[in-house]
């Protein structure tokens, strides 16, 4: 029973990690039609930046927020490289692979090749009825859930969110209506970067990441996005939660 509870919590936590990555992936894909292979790089770079800020003595919370914002800025930059020219879909896909490789190189030079980790915000672990629960798991679940719900509300209810849907639905008509489709695409990339960075920041205290960890992260997020169906965000989130079982609990062994 206690083992079951423990698996449940860790499994759900992983599910939310995939959900963050997959949601970033899907927001970018829906709005810009770009298949973004650099999604995992946002997580690695975000996590590493948080690591360095914490090492520099900047307190928890502040470090993580700055890292997520930095990941959003990296997303924006990658978006600018990918969509501001008029590339064909295949060219933009290859561009994102190139950007992923470039960020691996940058991460390796700046942070080296050993796996990095930092202690999470949670502090002491919780033991409930013989179950060992790092608080970081609960933090990951709570923060991801809130962020995903807020994001969904923004996309579904606000005017700018409808504008993003409009760009995804019919870019020609969106442009005719005066929407700056490229700018909205950049916004999507920034959101994708922030979600990836958040995933990295939340997972690093639980699983040390290496500079090339982006590949496995990207593939798992990608898989969750495909299982959930790229065009249907709500179904996707369920898929992420189901998905945790599919990987047999062996997430991130690759790195």
């Amino acid at each position: 029973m206690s083992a079951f509870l423990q698996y449940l919590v860790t499994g759900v936590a992983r599910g939310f990690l995939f959900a963050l990555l997959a949601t970033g992936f899907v927001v970018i894909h829906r709005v810009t039609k770009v298949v973004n292979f650099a999604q995992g790089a946002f997580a690695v770079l975000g996590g590493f930046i948080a690591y360095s800020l914490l090492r520099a003595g900047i307190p928890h919370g502040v470090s993580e927020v700055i890292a997520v914002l930095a990941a959003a800025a990296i997303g924006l930059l990658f978006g600018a490289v990918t969509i501001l020219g008029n590339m064909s879909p295949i060219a933009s896909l290859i561009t994102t692979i190139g950007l992923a490789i470039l960020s691996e190189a940058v991460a390796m030079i700046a942070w080296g090749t050993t796996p990095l980790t930092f202690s999470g915000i949670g502090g002491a672990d919780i033991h409930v009825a013989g179950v060992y629960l790092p608080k970081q798991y609960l933090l990951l679940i709570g923060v991801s859930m809130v962020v995903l719900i807020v994001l969904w509300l923004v996309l579904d209810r606000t005017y700018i969110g409808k504008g993003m849907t409009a760009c995804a639905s019919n870019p020609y008509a969106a442009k005719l209506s005066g929407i700056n489709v490229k700018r909205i695409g950049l916004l999507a990339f920034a959101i994708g970067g922030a979600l990836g960075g958040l995933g990295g920041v939340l997972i690093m205290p639980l699983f040390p990441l290496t500079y090339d960890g982006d590949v496995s992260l990207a593939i798992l997020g990608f898989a969750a996005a495909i299982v959930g169906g790229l065009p249907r965000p709500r179904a996707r989130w369920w898929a992420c939660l189901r998905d945790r079982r599919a990987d047999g609990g062996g997430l991130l062994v690759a790195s």
Partner: protein
Amino acid sequence: MAFLAPGDRAGPGSVDGHTGLGLDGLGSTEPVVTKALGGGQTVLSVEDLVVRYGTAVALESVSLNVERGEMVALIGANGAGKTTLLNALSGMLVPSAGRISCSGKLAHVPEGRELFAELSVDDNLRLGAWKATSRDTSPIYALFPKLDKLAKRRAGGLSGGEQQMVAIGRALMARPDLLAIDELSQGLAPNIVQELSRHLIRLNLETGLSVLLVEQNARLALGLCRRAYVLDTGHVVREGLSSQLLDDASVQQAYLGGPLVS
């Protein structure tokens, strides 16, 4: 965009300032008949416009103009370049040469409606006001009472006629001075076309909205509009009052299916 006159669709502030047009008159019972008819103020002027797709020339030195408050038809066979012209007017493609000057705001109702299919009717309308100052949809529902009942429905699930109303409504949300409509009657039953035509005429009379109407159904277009241009493989081959074009033997032959039996 250098070829566009200042104060065109680019600026959000340009909408309300200068014309006093817009949809304000629609909700009230007393029609606001404007001064605009035949006032001689040009809202759109196109000079020697050339548009190419790669090496293929789609428009070759096209010139036309629309006066404020005027309804002008643009007719021509498939592939004549009508859609290309409207896309150039709305900035969707960049001309190779020529000049477009638009002294007001232009809104373009595209061929095939091009709605945001998975969004609601109301959202579609509101998105039309992306650059406008007001997102109030009530004037559109006053104009198309049918849409009021459909406000929450997915736009993609509507009938062709309803979709065309949404497309026109969405364009009107930008509060244009000139409405360019591509294929008003495409795929619609005659009574729906009549209904839409009545709405257009009412808009034109009550708000002074100028209309550039692209239409396959030349008889309909010439009946609705005072003046018309005939486009053929990228050239304007005829222009004049609709009444004259209706009597023109070559126009009858090419676009009206032979002379009218009266």
